[in-house]
Structure formats: C-alpha cells, structure tokens
C-alpha cells in the first residue's frame, strides 16, 4: 500500500499494524515490561497502564488458517475469534502475560473458555459487561473494574493507586485527543492521509505501550505538517462496523476511487472521539461511566441505537461524506441487525448506505471492488445537503 507520508513514526505504526509482537512491544518486554492482551474495546485498558502493564488489543493479523481452532469452534462462528484462537494455539500470543476477555459477543466470549482449557497464560480473566447503558449498569461495571484491579494487583504483584489510575486516564485522554487531531486532518477536501494510513495510526495505538505511542503520535503529527493533500478521489465515504483492523480492506475501497474519511468502528473513532471524564473524584467511577455510557457504544449495548445513529450522523456531517459503507463479519448477529436499522435510518436521512459482509481475512477482493464501484457510481454528483438532514 503506497504512501506519500515520510515519517519514521508512521513506519513504526505500519509495522505494529502488520504484526502482532511488534518491535515496540519487544523493546518493552526486553526492558522487563509485561503485556496484557484484551478482546473488545470496552475493556478498561487504563487499568493495565496504571498497573505498569502494556495493554494489547487482540487481533488475528497474519493468520492464514483455522486448522487448530476448528477443534474449538464451528463453521457458523465469526472468523475473527477463530483466527485469533488459531494464532493463540500456534503460540503467536506467547508474548502475552495476561489475557482479558469480555462477554462482548457469542463468539468472542468463548475465546475465554477455550483459552483457559488449552493455554497456559499467567493471567486469564473474563469480565461481565452489562447490556444496558443506565445507572445500575454503570454501578455494576464499576464493581467489575474494581474486581479487575484487585485481580491484576494480585496476579502481577503491583499496586494500582487512585493516583496511578488518574495518571493513566490522563495519558489515555491525551492520546485520544491526538488521535482526534489526526482524524480532523481528514475533514478537508484533499486530506493529507487516506483511510489506510489513518487505520494504521489507530491500530498501532492498541499495540504499542501508551506512553511511547503518545510520543510517536506527536512526532507523526509534526511530520504530517508538510504532507500534500490527496486528490483524485471520486467520493468521500465513512465506514461503520465492528472489528475492522485490516488496512487492506480499506485499500480495496480506496483503489476504486472512494476516499475513506472517517468511521464509526471499534478500531476507529469509537475508541477516542470522547474522553474519559476527569471530573470524578473516583477514577473507577469515571471509567465505569465512560465505558458504559459516555463513549459511543456498539450494537451489543441495548437502548442506545438512537445515540449510535446520532454519532454516525455527526461523523458523516463533520467529514462531509457522500455515503456510508457498513461492514460486517459474517455470522455477526449484532452488526447484522444494526446494519438493517442503519440502512433504514440512513435512507431516511438521505445518506446512501452499502452493506458489505466479509471474512476476517480478506477474500473475494474482485467482488468487493465491483460492489464498491457500483456504489461509487450511485454517489457521484449527488452531494448531500447536511444542513437539511442532521
């Protein structure tokens, strides 16, 4: 994937996105650091940072088959956990000192069960994430975070003080603010970075120890100052969906002439568009409020679809998109129904929508290109009057 960005920081991001155990993590481990992997962006990674551990968001980058994990899963399971589990069984996650799972979906939650039966990771845990976004659920999750803190303290022989948690929240918020800055570079007509490049920046942030990532991000923003805007695209699109960490998927879309300018995905804006509030006395309360209510939710949280659609519209408007592409991994029930509603709501708002079902490891590029091309043709020359729809 070609780039006109001349930046060492960017090269580090690309490497971190294309690999699992990247150079930055290796350096961290070489210096005695420990790494905790976690599934789902609703795991409060600030807790790990506060504990002096590097949080690592689980992916299945580089997986080529599911031979080993086929003994655990079936062919009606989402390909993401199947590939991730396969890599785990192949030993590709042996660099992890811990793994935390959530009951985020029917497929991923079974990673925990299969992991504890087949692997020997020092610290493995599953958290109970509520399905609603109201006060009792915030309180439930508050307790869950406290239990997580206690478990991490015991397992890693560390103390997680309020001060450390506050510091971690501050650091993660600063990172979020910088990521927003990166994204805002894309609001202009000819942005200096495309969708592929933006995804590389964000995925890397889930794989590089946070303090180091922040330094790299600052450097990256400086490096971006002289970068020429990218022209030549026919339309601007937004991606809405879940587990999208593969720049190649975006590349296929952009090769057809659609510039991906923003998203609502869990390797995208949902991670950083809102900060954790720093006005609570108790940092755990702040985290519970953030992860249950304040951050843009995903379809597994009920009673929140309207706010999710508002967020999509907010993004669509700010980034002046011509259409929205809804991506879904096959067999995902949550995104399947969410996109059904997205389709109806976006149509009402006058924003064209295309749903693409895919496998975690990109296949059928030709078919994807054809569908995107057809979509672009319907978007060209239309122009959405956002003053009227949002």
């Amino acid at each position: 994937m070609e780039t006109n960005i001349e930046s060492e920081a960017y090269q580090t991001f690309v490497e971190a996105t294309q690999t699992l155990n990247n150079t930055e993590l290796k350096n961290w481990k070489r210096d005695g650091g420990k790494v905790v992997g976690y599934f789902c962006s609703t795991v409060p990674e600030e807790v790990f940072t506060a504990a002096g551990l590097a949080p690592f968001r689980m992916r299945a980058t580089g997986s080529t088959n599911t031979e080993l994990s086929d003994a655990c899963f079936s062919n009606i399971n989402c390909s993401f956990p199947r590939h991730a589990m396969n890599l785990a069984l192949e030993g590709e996650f042996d660099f992890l000192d811990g793994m935390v799972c959530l009951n985020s979906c029917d497929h991923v939650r079974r990673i925990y069960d299969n992991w504890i039966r087949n692997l020997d990771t020092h610290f493995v845990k599953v958290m109970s994430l509520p399905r609603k976004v109201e006060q009792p659920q915030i309180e439930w999750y508050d307790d869950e975070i406290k239990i997580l803190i206690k478990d991490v303290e015991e397992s890693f022989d560390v103390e997680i003080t309020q001060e450390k948690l506050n510091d971690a929240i501050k650091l993660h918020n600063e990172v979020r603010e910088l990521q927003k800055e990166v994204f805002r570079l894309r609001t202009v007509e000819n942005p200096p970075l495309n969708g592929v490049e933006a995804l590389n920046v964000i995925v890397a942030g889930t794989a590089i120890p946070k303090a180091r990532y922040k330094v790299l991000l600052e450097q990256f923003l400086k490096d971006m100052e002289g970068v020429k805007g990218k022209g030549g695209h026919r339309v601007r699109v937004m991606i809405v969906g879940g587990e999208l960490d593969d720049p190649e998927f975006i590349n296929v879309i952009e090769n057809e002439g659609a510039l991906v300018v923003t998203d609502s995905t869990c390797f995208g804006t949902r991670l950083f568009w809102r900060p954790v509030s720093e006005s609570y006395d108790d940092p755990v309360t702040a985290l519970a409020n953030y992860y249950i209510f304040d951050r843009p939710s995903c379809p597994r949280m009920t009673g929140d679809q309207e706010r999710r659609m508002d967020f999509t519209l907010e993004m669509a408007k700010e980034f002046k998109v011509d259409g929205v592409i809804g991506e879904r991994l096959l067999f995902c029930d949550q995104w399947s129904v969410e996109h059904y509603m997205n389709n109806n709501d976006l149509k009402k708002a006058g924003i064209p929508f295309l749903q693409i079902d895919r496998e975690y490891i990109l296949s059928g590029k030709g078919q994807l290109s054809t569908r995107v091309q057809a979509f672009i043709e319907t978007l060209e020359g239309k122009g959405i009057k956002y003053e009227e729809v949002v």
Partner: protein
Amino acid sequence: MTTEANTAVEEQEAKPLTTEEAKERALARYKVERDYFTENREAAKLMVEIGPEWQLQVQLLDIMLDAKEVIIDCVENDKPFIAGYFCNAPELFHAMDLPWYMIMETPFLAASAPYLEGDTDASVEIGMSQDLCTAIRLPIYYIETGQMPLPTVAIGLLTPCDGTPMLEQVIQHNSAWKDVPIYSCDPPYTSDERAVNYYAEELHRMADHITEHTKHTYSVDRLREVCEESNKTYSLWQEYNELRRNVPCPHGWEIGGAQAFAISQCFVAGDPRCTAWFEKLLEVGEERVAKGIGAIDRPDWEEKIRIFWFDIMPYGWVFEFMPWMEEEFGAVVVMDMFGNFPYTMIDTTSEETMYHSLAKRNLLDAPMIRQARGTAENFAGDIRRIVEDYKIDVVVWPGHMGHKDGAATVGIMRDTCRDLGVPFLHVGLDLYDKRYTSVEEVKEQTADFFRGMGLA
C-alpha cells in the same frame, strides 16, 4: 441486502398504518395462529383414544388457546397486557393479574405451522441476514410488518444469545412500537451471589416499570400464593423427571420437556391449571413405569439408544425425524435442554426472598438461558449431570444455526463427552427450517454416526 427487501420496507413506510389498521393487521395474524392451534387441538382430540398422553396435549392446547383468547380480548377491548418472555419471572405477571404473550411464540410453539416457511423467507426479503437465527428473524419480521399485537408494556430479553438484544433494539427502533414502554432485565455474565442479587434488583425495577405503565400491581400475599403454586408445579416436574431415569424411559420426544416448559413458564406460571397438568403427567408416567412401557408401546420394539438432545426440539420438522430415530434405531430422547434444570424453589418467606429465588430461577435455571448465558462450564456441567443421571448413550448437539455461542463450545462439549466415554454428535441445522439442512441429510448423518459408533 436485497434491493427488493428495501423496497418492501420503504413501501410500508410510505404508507404508515393507522393505529387501528395496525391493530387489525396484528390481530388478524394472531387469529390465524390461534386457528392453527385450534386445528391442532381438534386433531389431538381424535387421538385421545391412543393414550392419555394425547389428553395431556389437548389440555396443553386448551391452556394455550385460552391464553390466546385473553390476548385477543385485551387487544379488542383495550385492556392492558404484556409482550414478554418466559424467563422474566412470569409469576410476577400472574400476581399482577396481567396477561402476556411471548414475543418469540411463533418459532417456539408454532414451528410446524404452514405459514412458517413463507414468513422465514419474507424476513430475509425485508433485509435480515440469512445467518441470523430464524427464531429472531421471524419476530423481527412480524414487528416490522405490523403483525404482532402492540402491548401496553414490553418486557425484553437480553440473553442468552446476541440475537435477543438485537430483537429488542428493533422493537425500540420500530415506529409503531417506539411508544411502547419497554424494560429488560440486564443479565450478568457471572453466576454468583452478587449476580443473583443484581438480577433480583433488575426484576424489582421491571415490576415497578410494569406497574407504572399498567397501574397493575400485586400484594405480597398474592405473589406468595402464585409462587407457592409455582413451587408445586416444579416439584411435580422434578418427580416426573425422576421417572425418566428409568430404563426404558417412559416417554420419548413427544411429551416432556417442551410441553412442561411451555405450560410452567409460558402460559400459566403459578396457576392451579398448570399444577393439574403436571399431576396428570406424573400419573401417566408412573403408570408406564409400573408396567415397564417405554417410549413406544409395541411388543416388537425396544429402547436401544438413550439420547440427550441438547437443544430445543426441531419443531419445524420433528415429525419427520424423531419417530424415524425411534423406529430405525430404538433411539429415544430421554432428556432435552428444556427438560431438566435445577428447579430452584421459591423461598416465600418475604418479598425479598421471593425476588431472590425468582432471580435465581430465571437467571440460572431457565433452559437455554442457563446454558448459554454464561461461561462454557454451564454446558459441560449439564452434560456431565444429565449423562450420569439418565444413563445417556449419546449426546446430540444439533448445532442450530442461531446458537453461535454453543457452536463455539463444540470442542468443549466434545471433550466433556470424551471424558465421560459417551459419543457426541454435532449435526449443524436450523431447528425451525428444514431447508437449511434437509431432513434426509440429518438422517444420513445420524445413521452414519450410530453405525460408526457401533450403536446400530
């Protein structure tokens, strides 16, 4: 996503139904389903001579039909009623004197209805993915096309799978249902005392919500009365299940788990009619055990393979498959997912103890919720318990296309069975739609398996 599908939805939205029209439309379909069950009841009546089990079926259908008539009356006469689910402590609805229907009633109870296939196809046409559980797609289709009675209050379900919370969100999203106040208890993923207490609080909030929107409430004494009646039912059910340990098992797939579940949890939880039905079931079962009669009462037949069917019965095509298994292989479904769970008795000492027990029963016991809501140990533990208690020869995981958490537990189930020395069969089908994997294919797979395992 098909273009036709979007057109269908757009067309519908272009001409929004008036409340009266929507009411009529939903009622018309509801009556079609009532008529389907009425026909079933008439057919069952003709079979009563064959055995008392048919009398039980007739009684069950009487109760179901009564429940349907009550809902029809509520819709026609603007009386309050609930749309809900079985594991929402229906004893509370009963104590509040509020009728309710189950949102997933059609796939669960009318899966053999002649209109099911057409409706399943139509659900895809309005834009549902084909890999979404059929049992979720159908109610979404009915809601989106105004074919489900609009209740006074909806009580949602956020467990055991990813499908149910999505169905709930369609309810909240649908323009006609938007104003229906909905409450759903949040199910914790854990199963300890903290989880039960939290769920009990959720049930409290659910009851407050119902009262707020229907003005119906309960007295503690009335709730106690209902819970005590419900306890009687569950004790009888437990006693009946003891009978199923016998070799030969007194009943096979035709009567047992599914009906017991329907009657105790879906229609008349805590009602003396429910207790009476279980008394009869127990009596019939005892008689068979005393006479040594197995699932099929025929001199040239014997029970050879005792099956634990670890799911709902495939009601869409049950008649084409289960009798075949019995006839061909002497394979009897001794227990199924809906037939045996721990039956927490409700401690009726105080309102709080009742809520606590109801929370336990509905979060930790209710079938399918019990297995699929939490970690895989719930599956493994049930297999160990049932295999031992019921002298099971084969565990069948049908592999319903909606049960994705179960699909991700297949390795664990297989390992559990291997440790127990019991063969494990994983099929891969749709419990509600025989076109997904044809009955012939399922039969072939089953027969090969039985032969391969030296069971036939």
